[in-house]
Protein backbone atom coordinates (compact mmCIF):
# COMPACT_ATOMS: atom_id res chain seq x y z
CA UNK A 1 0.00 0.00 0.00
CA UNK A 2 2.79 2.31 1.04
CA UNK A 3 4.60 1.43 -2.15
CA UNK A 4 1.54 2.07 -4.28
CA UNK A 5 0.96 5.49 -2.75
CA UNK A 6 4.61 6.35 -3.29
CA UNK A 7 4.27 5.46 -6.96
CA UNK A 8 1.09 7.49 -7.27
CA UNK A 9 2.71 10.40 -5.46
CA UNK A 10 5.71 10.09 -7.76
CA UNK A 11 3.49 10.18 -10.82
CA UNK A 12 1.68 13.19 -9.43
CA UNK A 13 4.97 14.99 -8.89
CA UNK A 14 5.96 14.23 -12.45
CA UNK A 15 2.73 15.60 -13.83
CA UNK A 16 3.02 18.69 -11.63
CA UNK A 17 6.61 19.29 -12.63
CA UNK A 18 5.70 19.03 -16.31
CA UNK A 19 2.75 21.32 -15.95
CA UNK A 20 4.79 23.80 -13.95
CA UNK A 21 7.11 24.12 -16.94
CA UNK A 22 4.18 24.81 -19.21
CA UNK A 23 2.89 27.52 -16.92
CA UNK A 24 6.13 29.45 -16.77
CA UNK A 25 6.21 32.88 -18.27
CA UNK A 26 2.44 33.00 -18.53
CA UNK A 27 1.25 34.16 -15.15
CA UNK A 28 -2.51 33.96 -14.96
CA UNK A 29 -4.28 36.91 -13.43
CA UNK A 30 -5.02 36.40 -9.77
CA UNK A 31 -7.27 33.57 -8.69
CA UNK A 32 -10.85 34.69 -8.91
CA UNK A 33 -9.70 38.10 -10.09
CA UNK A 34 -9.41 39.43 -6.52
CA UNK A 35 -6.13 41.18 -6.98
CA UNK A 36 -4.14 41.34 -10.11
CA UNK A 37 -0.88 42.29 -11.67
CA UNK A 38 2.21 40.23 -12.15
CA UNK A 39 2.57 37.01 -10.21
CA UNK A 40 5.01 37.78 -7.43
CA UNK A 41 8.20 35.75 -7.36
CA UNK A 42 9.75 34.74 -4.10
CA UNK A 43 13.33 34.25 -3.16
CA UNK A 44 14.42 30.66 -2.92
CA UNK A 45 17.01 30.37 -0.18
CA UNK A 46 20.13 28.36 -0.91
CA UNK A 47 22.26 26.33 1.46
CA UNK A 48 19.43 25.82 3.91
CA UNK A 49 20.37 23.30 6.54
CA UNK A 50 17.60 22.23 8.86
CA UNK A 51 19.02 18.85 9.75
CA UNK A 52 17.33 19.11 13.17
CA UNK A 53 14.01 18.75 11.42
CA UNK A 54 13.14 15.20 10.30
CA UNK A 55 10.39 16.52 8.03
CA UNK A 56 12.77 18.87 6.24
CA UNK A 57 15.44 16.17 5.99
CA UNK A 58 13.06 13.76 4.30
CA UNK A 59 11.69 16.43 1.95
CA UNK A 60 15.17 17.64 1.11
CA UNK A 61 16.49 14.23 0.18
CA UNK A 62 13.35 13.58 -1.88
CA UNK A 63 13.72 16.97 -3.54
CA UNK A 64 10.05 17.82 -3.12
CA UNK A 65 8.05 19.46 -0.38
CA UNK A 66 4.51 18.16 -0.11
CA UNK A 67 2.04 20.82 0.93
CA UNK A 68 -1.62 20.23 1.70
CA UNK A 69 -3.88 22.98 0.35
CA UNK A 70 -7.52 23.47 -0.44
CA UNK A 71 -8.55 23.57 -4.06
CA UNK A 72 -12.08 24.90 -3.83
CA UNK A 73 -11.76 28.25 -2.06
CA UNK A 74 -11.48 31.17 -4.50
CA UNK A 75 -8.88 33.68 -3.44
CA UNK A 76 -7.24 31.37 -0.91
CA UNK A 77 -6.65 27.97 -2.40
CA UNK A 78 -8.43 27.31 -5.65
CA UNK A 79 -7.76 25.20 -8.70
CA UNK A 80 -9.65 26.32 -11.76
CA UNK A 81 -11.07 23.53 -13.91
CA UNK A 82 -8.47 22.69 -16.50
CA UNK A 83 -5.65 24.27 -14.55
CA UNK A 84 -2.90 22.12 -13.10
CA UNK A 85 -1.76 24.34 -10.27
CA UNK A 86 -3.78 25.86 -7.44
CA UNK A 87 -3.87 29.60 -6.90
CA UNK A 88 -4.64 31.88 -3.99
CA UNK A 89 -3.27 33.53 -0.88
CA UNK A 90 -2.64 30.21 0.90
CA UNK A 91 -0.72 29.05 -2.13
CA UNK A 92 1.42 32.21 -2.16
CA UNK A 93 2.14 31.83 1.58
CA UNK A 94 3.10 28.21 0.93
CA UNK A 95 5.47 29.32 -1.84
CA UNK A 96 7.05 31.95 0.45
CA UNK A 97 7.59 29.40 3.21
CA UNK A 98 8.85 26.76 0.79
CA UNK A 99 11.24 29.31 -0.71
CA UNK A 100 12.74 30.08 2.68
CA UNK A 101 13.19 26.35 3.26
CA UNK A 102 15.07 26.05 -0.03
CA UNK A 103 12.34 24.69 -2.28
CA UNK A 104 11.42 26.45 -5.49
CA UNK A 105 7.72 26.49 -6.54
CA UNK A 106 8.25 23.62 -9.00
CA UNK A 107 9.64 21.50 -6.19
CA UNK A 108 6.35 21.75 -4.34
CA UNK A 109 3.86 18.95 -4.63
CA UNK A 110 0.35 20.28 -4.02
CA UNK A 111 -1.89 17.76 -2.30
CA UNK A 112 -5.53 18.49 -1.80
CA UNK A 113 -6.56 18.43 1.84
CA UNK A 114 -10.14 18.87 2.97
CA UNK A 115 -11.20 19.78 6.48
CA UNK A 116 -11.56 16.15 7.53
CA UNK A 117 -8.12 14.92 6.53
CA UNK A 118 -5.74 17.71 7.50
CA UNK A 119 -4.80 16.23 10.86
CA UNK A 120 -4.53 12.60 9.69
CA UNK A 121 -2.40 13.65 6.70
CA UNK A 122 0.00 15.54 8.96
CA UNK A 123 0.11 12.76 11.54
CA UNK A 124 0.77 10.06 8.97
CA UNK A 125 3.28 12.10 6.99
CA UNK A 126 1.29 12.24 3.73
CA UNK A 127 2.03 15.96 3.69
CA UNK A 128 4.92 17.96 5.14
CA UNK A 129 2.78 20.98 5.95
CA UNK A 130 -0.77 22.21 5.55
CA UNK A 131 -1.68 25.69 4.37
CA UNK A 132 -5.42 25.29 3.93
CA UNK A 133 -7.54 27.93 5.71
CA UNK A 134 -6.46 26.07 8.81
CA UNK A 135 -7.78 27.79 11.92
CA UNK A 136 -5.50 27.46 14.95
CA UNK A 137 -7.35 26.02 17.93
CA UNK A 138 -6.50 24.14 21.10
CA UNK A 139 -8.04 20.83 20.08
CA UNK A 140 -5.97 20.72 16.90
CA UNK A 141 -2.84 21.77 18.79
CA UNK A 142 -3.02 18.45 20.63
CA UNK A 143 -2.10 16.53 17.49
CA UNK A 144 -0.40 19.01 15.15
CA UNK A 145 1.81 22.08 15.56
CA UNK A 146 0.99 25.49 14.12
CA UNK A 147 3.26 28.19 12.78
CA UNK A 148 1.78 31.62 12.28
CA UNK A 149 -0.96 32.87 12.16
CA UNK A 150 -0.31 34.45 8.78
CA UNK A 151 -3.81 35.89 8.45
CA UNK A 152 -6.76 36.44 10.74
CA UNK A 153 -10.00 35.83 8.90
CA UNK A 154 -13.42 36.50 10.32
CA UNK A 155 -16.82 35.08 9.50
CA UNK A 156 -18.75 37.43 7.24
CA UNK A 157 -21.75 37.42 4.91
CA UNK A 158 -21.95 37.47 1.14
CA UNK A 159 -25.22 38.95 -0.10
CA UNK A 160 -26.78 40.07 -3.33
CA UNK A 161 -25.74 43.62 -4.23
CA UNK A 162 -29.26 44.96 -3.66
CA UNK A 163 -29.80 43.04 -0.40
CA UNK A 164 -31.12 44.75 2.74
CA UNK A 165 -28.77 42.74 4.97
CA UNK A 166 -26.23 45.24 6.27
CA UNK A 167 -24.96 43.50 9.39
CA UNK A 168 -25.07 40.07 11.03
CA UNK A 169 -28.01 41.34 13.12
CA UNK A 170 -30.18 41.46 10.00
CA UNK A 171 -30.15 37.75 9.24
CA UNK A 172 -33.00 36.81 11.58
CA UNK A 173 -35.68 35.05 9.56
CA UNK A 174 -33.44 34.87 6.49
CA UNK A 175 -31.88 31.79 4.95
CA UNK A 176 -28.12 31.62 5.25
CA UNK A 177 -26.01 29.10 3.37
CA UNK A 178 -22.72 27.53 4.36
CA UNK A 179 -20.82 24.26 4.09
CA UNK A 180 -22.08 21.26 6.03
CA UNK A 181 -20.24 20.78 9.31
CA UNK A 182 -18.01 23.85 8.96
CA UNK A 183 -17.33 26.22 11.85
CA UNK A 184 -19.29 29.07 10.19
CA UNK A 185 -22.31 26.78 9.85
CA UNK A 186 -22.05 25.78 13.50
CA UNK A 187 -21.74 29.45 14.53
CA UNK A 188 -24.97 30.30 12.73
CA UNK A 189 -26.73 27.36 14.35
CA UNK A 190 -25.56 28.37 17.83
CA UNK A 191 -25.37 32.18 17.81
CA UNK A 192 -27.92 33.16 15.16
CA UNK A 193 -30.49 30.43 15.53
CA UNK A 194 -33.29 32.73 14.31
CA UNK A 195 -31.75 32.54 10.84
CA UNK A 196 -32.45 29.48 8.78
CA UNK A 197 -29.32 27.54 7.91
CA UNK A 198 -28.91 25.76 4.59
CA UNK A 199 -25.86 23.54 4.17
CA UNK A 200 -24.26 21.94 1.13
CA UNK A 201 -20.96 20.18 0.64
CA UNK A 202 -19.39 23.04 -1.32
CA UNK A 203 -19.61 26.83 -1.31
CA UNK A 204 -20.20 26.81 -5.04
CA UNK A 205 -23.66 25.31 -4.47
CA UNK A 206 -24.39 28.06 -1.95
CA UNK A 207 -23.36 30.65 -4.50
CA UNK A 208 -25.67 29.04 -7.08
CA UNK A 209 -28.51 29.29 -4.57
CA UNK A 210 -27.64 32.90 -3.79
CA UNK A 211 -27.78 33.70 -7.49
CA UNK A 212 -31.19 32.07 -7.90
CA UNK A 213 -32.44 33.79 -4.73
CA UNK A 214 -33.10 30.53 -2.86
CA UNK A 215 -30.92 31.79 -0.01
CA UNK A 216 -30.41 35.34 1.21
CA UNK A 217 -26.76 35.13 2.23
CA UNK A 218 -23.70 32.90 2.10
CA UNK A 219 -21.54 32.87 5.19
CA UNK A 220 -17.97 31.80 5.83
CA UNK A 221 -14.56 33.40 6.39
CA UNK A 222 -14.35 36.83 4.77
CA UNK A 223 -11.32 35.97 2.65
CA UNK A 224 -13.26 33.27 0.79
CA UNK A 225 -16.25 35.57 0.34
CA UNK A 226 -14.01 38.30 -1.06
CA UNK A 227 -12.90 35.78 -3.67
CA UNK A 228 -16.50 35.15 -4.71
CA UNK A 229 -17.43 38.85 -4.61
CA UNK A 230 -14.54 39.52 -6.99
CA UNK A 231 -15.61 36.66 -9.25
CA UNK A 232 -19.18 38.00 -9.47
CA UNK A 233 -18.44 41.69 -9.44
CA UNK A 234 -21.53 43.88 -9.22
CA UNK A 235 -23.74 40.93 -8.44
CA UNK A 236 -22.68 40.13 -4.87
CA UNK A 237 -21.10 42.12 -2.11
CA UNK A 238 -19.49 41.26 1.22
CA UNK A 239 -21.23 42.82 4.23
CA UNK A 240 -17.87 43.65 5.79
CA UNK A 241 -18.62 43.15 9.47
CA UNK A 242 -16.70 40.06 10.50
CA UNK A 243 -18.10 38.58 13.69
CA UNK A 244 -15.51 35.91 14.58
CA UNK A 245 -11.73 35.55 14.61
CA UNK A 246 -10.22 32.71 12.63
CA UNK A 247 -6.43 32.84 12.85
CA UNK A 248 -5.09 30.84 9.90
CA UNK A 249 -1.90 28.93 10.70
CA UNK A 250 0.50 26.69 8.86
CA UNK A 251 -0.11 23.16 10.13
CA UNK A 252 3.04 21.16 10.79
CA UNK A 253 3.80 17.68 12.10
CA UNK A 254 3.93 17.69 15.86
CA UNK A 255 7.20 18.18 17.76
CA UNK A 256 9.22 19.31 14.77
CA UNK A 257 10.32 22.48 16.55
CA UNK A 258 13.17 23.27 14.15
CA UNK A 259 10.73 23.33 11.24
CA UNK A 260 8.18 25.38 13.16
CA UNK A 261 10.80 28.00 14.07
CA UNK A 262 11.95 28.17 10.48
CA UNK A 263 8.39 28.62 9.19
CA UNK A 264 7.67 31.27 11.81
CA UNK A 265 10.86 33.09 10.82
CA UNK A 266 9.83 32.92 7.18
CA UNK A 267 6.37 34.33 7.91
CA UNK A 268 7.78 37.14 10.03
CA UNK A 269 10.33 38.01 7.38
CA UNK A 270 7.67 38.07 4.66
CA UNK A 271 5.55 40.49 6.68
CA UNK A 272 8.51 42.77 7.23
CA UNK A 273 9.97 42.82 3.73
CA UNK A 274 6.64 43.31 1.97
CA UNK A 275 6.33 39.96 0.20
CA UNK A 276 3.30 39.21 2.39
CA UNK A 277 1.60 42.36 1.14
CA UNK A 278 2.58 41.53 -2.42
CA UNK A 279 1.06 38.07 -2.09
CA UNK A 280 -2.09 39.49 -0.52
CA UNK A 281 -2.63 42.11 -3.18
CA UNK A 282 -1.98 39.61 -5.94
CA UNK A 283 -4.63 37.22 -4.65
CA UNK A 284 -7.13 38.95 -2.36
CA UNK A 285 -6.89 42.55 -3.46
CA UNK A 286 -6.43 45.79 -1.56
CA UNK A 287 -4.51 45.21 1.69
CA UNK A 288 -4.68 48.76 3.06
CA UNK A 289 -7.31 47.92 5.67
CA UNK A 290 -5.85 44.53 6.52
CA UNK A 291 -3.73 44.03 9.60
CA UNK A 292 -0.81 41.67 9.58
CA UNK A 293 -1.13 39.29 12.51
CA UNK A 294 1.55 38.74 15.12
CA UNK A 295 3.23 35.35 14.81
CA UNK A 296 2.46 33.31 17.91
CA UNK A 297 5.41 31.20 19.06
CA UNK A 298 3.48 29.29 21.68
Amino acid at each position, binding site marked *: MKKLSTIIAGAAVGVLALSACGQEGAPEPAAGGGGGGEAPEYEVAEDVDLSDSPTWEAANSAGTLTIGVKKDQPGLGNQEPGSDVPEGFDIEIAKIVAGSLGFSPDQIEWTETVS*ANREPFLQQGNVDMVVATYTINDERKKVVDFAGPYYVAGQDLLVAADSDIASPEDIGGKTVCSVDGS*TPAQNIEEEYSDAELVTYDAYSKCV*TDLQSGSVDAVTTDDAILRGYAAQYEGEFSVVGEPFTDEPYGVGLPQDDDALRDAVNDALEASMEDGTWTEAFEYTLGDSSDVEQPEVDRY
Partner: protein
Amino acid sequence: MNPLIQTFLSGTWGTLALFGVTLVGCLIGGTILAAMRVSPVPILRGAAAAYVDVVRNTPLTLVMFFCVFGLPYLDIRFGSTAGMNSFVLACIALTAYTSCFIAETLRSGIATVPVGQAEAARAVGLGFGQVLSFVVLPQAFRTVIPPLGSVIIAMLKNTSIASAFNNRELISAMRNAIEVRGDIVIPLLLATALIYLVLALGLGRIFAYLEKKLVILR
Protein backbone atom coordinates in the same frame (compact mmCIF):
# COMPACT_ATOMS: atom_id res chain seq x y z
CA MET B 1 -24.60 15.56 27.95
CA ASN B 2 -21.39 15.40 26.01
CA PRO B 3 -21.87 17.67 22.97
CA LEU B 4 -20.25 15.08 20.69
CA ILE B 5 -22.76 12.41 21.70
CA GLN B 6 -25.55 14.92 21.21
CA THR B 7 -24.26 15.74 17.73
CA PHE B 8 -24.19 12.07 16.79
CA LEU B 9 -27.59 11.38 18.32
CA SER B 10 -29.26 14.12 16.31
CA GLY B 11 -27.34 12.92 13.24
CA THR B 12 -28.60 9.38 13.76
CA TRP B 13 -32.11 10.73 14.10
CA GLY B 14 -31.71 12.59 10.80
CA THR B 15 -30.54 9.43 9.07
CA LEU B 16 -33.42 7.41 10.52
CA ALA B 17 -35.97 10.02 9.45
CA LEU B 18 -34.68 9.95 5.86
CA PHE B 19 -34.57 6.16 5.99
CA GLY B 20 -38.08 5.75 7.39
CA VAL B 21 -39.82 8.00 4.89
CA THR B 22 -37.86 6.54 1.99
CA LEU B 23 -38.57 2.98 3.12
CA VAL B 24 -42.33 3.51 2.90
CA GLY B 25 -41.98 5.41 -0.37
CA CYS B 26 -39.75 2.90 -2.14
CA LEU B 27 -41.77 -0.14 -1.08
CA ILE B 28 -44.86 1.46 -2.58
CA GLY B 29 -43.01 2.77 -5.63
CA GLY B 30 -41.21 -0.52 -6.19
CA THR B 31 -44.42 -2.52 -5.97
CA ILE B 32 -46.15 -0.24 -8.46
CA LEU B 33 -43.22 -0.45 -10.86
CA ALA B 34 -43.06 -4.24 -10.58
CA ALA B 35 -46.82 -4.48 -11.16
CA MET B 36 -46.47 -2.27 -14.23
CA ARG B 37 -43.70 -4.45 -15.61
CA VAL B 38 -45.86 -7.60 -15.45
CA SER B 39 -49.10 -5.93 -16.46
CA PRO B 40 -50.92 -6.90 -19.66
CA VAL B 41 -50.80 -3.28 -20.93
CA PRO B 42 -47.79 -2.78 -23.22
CA ILE B 43 -47.54 0.99 -22.53
CA LEU B 44 -47.29 0.42 -18.79
CA ARG B 45 -44.71 -2.33 -19.30
CA GLY B 46 -42.65 -0.12 -21.56
CA ALA B 47 -42.89 2.93 -19.31
CA ALA B 48 -41.79 0.98 -16.24
CA ALA B 49 -38.93 -0.66 -18.10
CA ALA B 50 -37.75 2.70 -19.45
CA TYR B 51 -37.97 4.31 -16.02
CA VAL B 52 -35.97 1.53 -14.38
CA ASP B 53 -33.37 1.63 -17.13
CA VAL B 54 -32.88 5.38 -16.84
CA VAL B 55 -32.99 5.93 -13.09
CA ARG B 56 -31.23 2.74 -12.03
CA ASN B 57 -28.29 3.56 -14.26
CA THR B 58 -27.90 7.14 -13.06
CA PRO B 59 -25.65 7.73 -10.05
CA LEU B 60 -27.70 8.64 -6.97
CA THR B 61 -25.76 11.89 -6.57
CA LEU B 62 -27.02 12.98 -9.97
CA VAL B 63 -30.58 11.89 -9.23
CA MET B 64 -30.40 14.05 -6.12
CA PHE B 65 -28.91 16.94 -8.08
CA PHE B 66 -31.85 16.81 -10.48
CA CYS B 67 -34.35 16.71 -7.62
CA VAL B 68 -32.73 19.40 -5.49
CA PHE B 69 -31.73 21.87 -8.18
CA GLY B 70 -34.09 20.82 -10.97
CA LEU B 71 -37.49 20.65 -9.28
CA PRO B 72 -37.25 24.20 -7.83
CA TYR B 73 -36.85 25.43 -11.43
CA LEU B 74 -40.31 24.02 -12.09
CA ASP B 75 -41.49 25.93 -9.02
CA ILE B 76 -41.99 22.74 -7.09
CA ARG B 77 -41.44 23.33 -3.40
CA PHE B 78 -42.41 21.47 -0.26
CA GLY B 79 -42.93 22.84 3.22
CA SER B 80 -42.44 26.37 4.40
CA THR B 81 -38.78 26.13 5.37
CA ALA B 82 -35.72 25.36 3.30
CA GLY B 83 -34.89 22.49 5.65
CA MET B 84 -38.26 20.82 5.17
CA ASN B 85 -38.03 21.35 1.42
CA SER B 86 -34.59 19.72 1.25
CA PHE B 87 -35.76 16.81 3.37
CA VAL B 88 -38.69 16.09 1.08
CA LEU B 89 -36.56 16.49 -2.04
CA ALA B 90 -33.93 14.10 -0.69
CA CYS B 91 -36.63 11.55 0.16
CA ILE B 92 -38.05 11.87 -3.36
CA ALA B 93 -34.64 11.28 -4.89
CA LEU B 94 -33.91 8.30 -2.64
CA THR B 95 -37.37 6.86 -3.30
CA ALA B 96 -37.10 7.32 -7.06
CA TYR B 97 -33.74 5.59 -7.06
CA THR B 98 -34.39 2.74 -4.63
CA SER B 99 -37.80 1.91 -6.16
CA CYS B 100 -36.01 0.62 -9.26
CA PHE B 101 -34.02 -1.88 -7.25
CA ILE B 102 -37.06 -2.96 -5.23
CA ALA B 103 -39.05 -3.40 -8.45
CA GLU B 104 -36.40 -5.57 -10.05
CA THR B 105 -36.02 -7.66 -6.90
CA LEU B 106 -39.75 -8.09 -6.67
CA ARG B 107 -39.98 -9.03 -10.34
CA SER B 108 -37.59 -11.92 -9.74
CA GLY B 109 -39.92 -13.00 -6.92
CA ILE B 110 -42.94 -12.81 -9.21
CA ALA B 111 -41.14 -15.07 -11.67
CA THR B 112 -40.90 -17.78 -9.01
CA VAL B 113 -44.69 -17.98 -8.65
CA PRO B 114 -45.86 -20.71 -11.03
CA VAL B 115 -47.89 -19.37 -13.97
CA GLY B 116 -50.55 -21.96 -13.22
CA GLN B 117 -51.50 -20.10 -10.05
CA ALA B 118 -52.19 -16.88 -11.92
CA GLU B 119 -54.13 -18.82 -14.53
CA ALA B 120 -56.17 -20.56 -11.85
CA ALA B 121 -56.94 -17.21 -10.21
CA ARG B 122 -58.04 -15.82 -13.57
CA ALA B 123 -60.20 -18.90 -14.07
CA VAL B 124 -62.14 -18.26 -10.85
CA GLY B 125 -62.82 -14.72 -12.07
CA LEU B 126 -60.21 -12.50 -10.38
CA GLY B 127 -59.07 -9.42 -12.28
CA PHE B 128 -55.40 -8.51 -12.88
CA GLY B 129 -55.19 -6.35 -9.75
CA GLN B 130 -56.75 -9.04 -7.61
CA VAL B 131 -54.53 -11.77 -9.02
CA LEU B 132 -51.51 -9.65 -8.24
CA SER B 133 -52.48 -8.51 -4.77
CA PHE B 134 -54.09 -11.71 -3.45
CA VAL B 135 -52.10 -14.43 -5.18
CA VAL B 136 -48.84 -13.39 -6.79
CA LEU B 137 -47.37 -10.52 -4.76
CA PRO B 138 -47.80 -12.07 -1.29
CA GLN B 139 -45.77 -15.05 -2.43
CA ALA B 140 -43.28 -12.91 -4.37
CA PHE B 141 -42.58 -10.72 -1.33
CA ARG B 142 -41.95 -13.73 0.87
CA THR B 143 -39.54 -15.22 -1.63
CA VAL B 144 -37.42 -12.10 -2.03
CA ILE B 145 -36.98 -11.11 1.61
CA PRO B 146 -33.21 -11.80 1.67
CA PRO B 147 -32.32 -9.73 -1.44
CA LEU B 148 -34.84 -7.09 -0.40
CA GLY B 149 -32.88 -6.80 2.85
CA SER B 150 -29.72 -6.02 0.91
CA VAL B 151 -31.46 -3.37 -1.18
CA ILE B 152 -32.85 -1.70 1.91
CA ILE B 153 -29.53 -1.77 3.78
CA ALA B 154 -27.93 -0.19 0.72
CA MET B 155 -30.62 2.49 0.83
CA LEU B 156 -29.85 3.18 4.50
CA LYS B 157 -26.26 3.91 3.59
CA ASN B 158 -27.29 5.90 0.51
CA THR B 159 -29.02 8.41 2.79
CA SER B 160 -25.50 9.72 3.50
CA ILE B 161 -25.54 11.46 0.11
CA ALA B 162 -28.34 13.71 1.35
CA SER B 163 -25.87 15.48 3.64
CA ALA B 164 -24.47 17.25 0.59
CA PHE B 165 -27.92 18.67 -0.11
CA ASN B 166 -28.88 20.49 3.08
CA ASN B 167 -29.88 17.51 5.19
CA ARG B 168 -28.46 17.01 8.67
CA GLU B 169 -27.74 13.34 9.22
CA LEU B 170 -24.89 11.11 10.35
CA ILE B 171 -22.36 12.33 7.82
CA SER B 172 -23.02 15.97 8.70
CA ALA B 173 -22.76 15.05 12.37
CA MET B 174 -19.40 13.49 11.62
CA ARG B 175 -18.24 16.60 9.73
CA ASN B 176 -19.40 18.80 12.61
CA ALA B 177 -17.55 16.65 15.11
CA ILE B 178 -14.35 16.61 13.06
CA GLU B 179 -14.44 20.39 12.72
CA VAL B 180 -14.58 20.84 16.51
CA ARG B 181 -12.35 17.95 17.51
CA GLY B 182 -9.50 17.85 15.03
CA ASP B 183 -7.48 15.83 17.53
CA ILE B 184 -9.61 12.69 17.27
CA VAL B 185 -10.44 12.48 13.56
CA ILE B 186 -9.87 8.74 13.16
CA PRO B 187 -11.91 7.77 16.25
CA LEU B 188 -14.74 9.99 14.96
CA LEU B 189 -14.66 8.28 11.56
CA LEU B 190 -14.71 4.91 13.29
CA ALA B 191 -17.60 6.00 15.51
CA THR B 192 -19.59 7.02 12.43
CA ALA B 193 -18.89 3.70 10.75
CA LEU B 194 -19.90 1.94 13.95
CA ILE B 195 -23.27 3.70 14.06
CA TYR B 196 -23.98 2.74 10.44
CA LEU B 197 -22.89 -0.79 11.28
CA VAL B 198 -25.23 -0.99 14.27
CA LEU B 199 -28.15 0.37 12.22
CA ALA B 200 -27.46 -2.00 9.32
CA LEU B 201 -26.97 -4.99 11.61
CA GLY B 202 -30.27 -4.17 13.29
CA LEU B 203 -31.96 -4.11 9.89
CA GLY B 204 -30.29 -7.38 9.00
CA ARG B 205 -31.71 -8.96 12.16
CA ILE B 206 -35.19 -7.72 11.34
CA PHE B 207 -34.97 -9.22 7.87
CA ALA B 208 -33.59 -12.50 9.24
CA TYR B 209 -36.59 -12.64 11.57
CA LEU B 210 -39.04 -11.86 8.76
CA GLU B 211 -37.44 -14.50 6.59
CA LYS B 212 -37.82 -17.13 9.28
CA LYS B 213 -41.43 -16.17 9.92
CA LEU B 214 -42.61 -15.73 6.34
CA VAL B 215 -40.48 -17.95 4.15
CA ILE B 216 -42.41 -20.34 1.89
CA LEU B 217 -41.23 -23.89 2.25
CA ARG B 218 -41.22 -25.55 -1.11
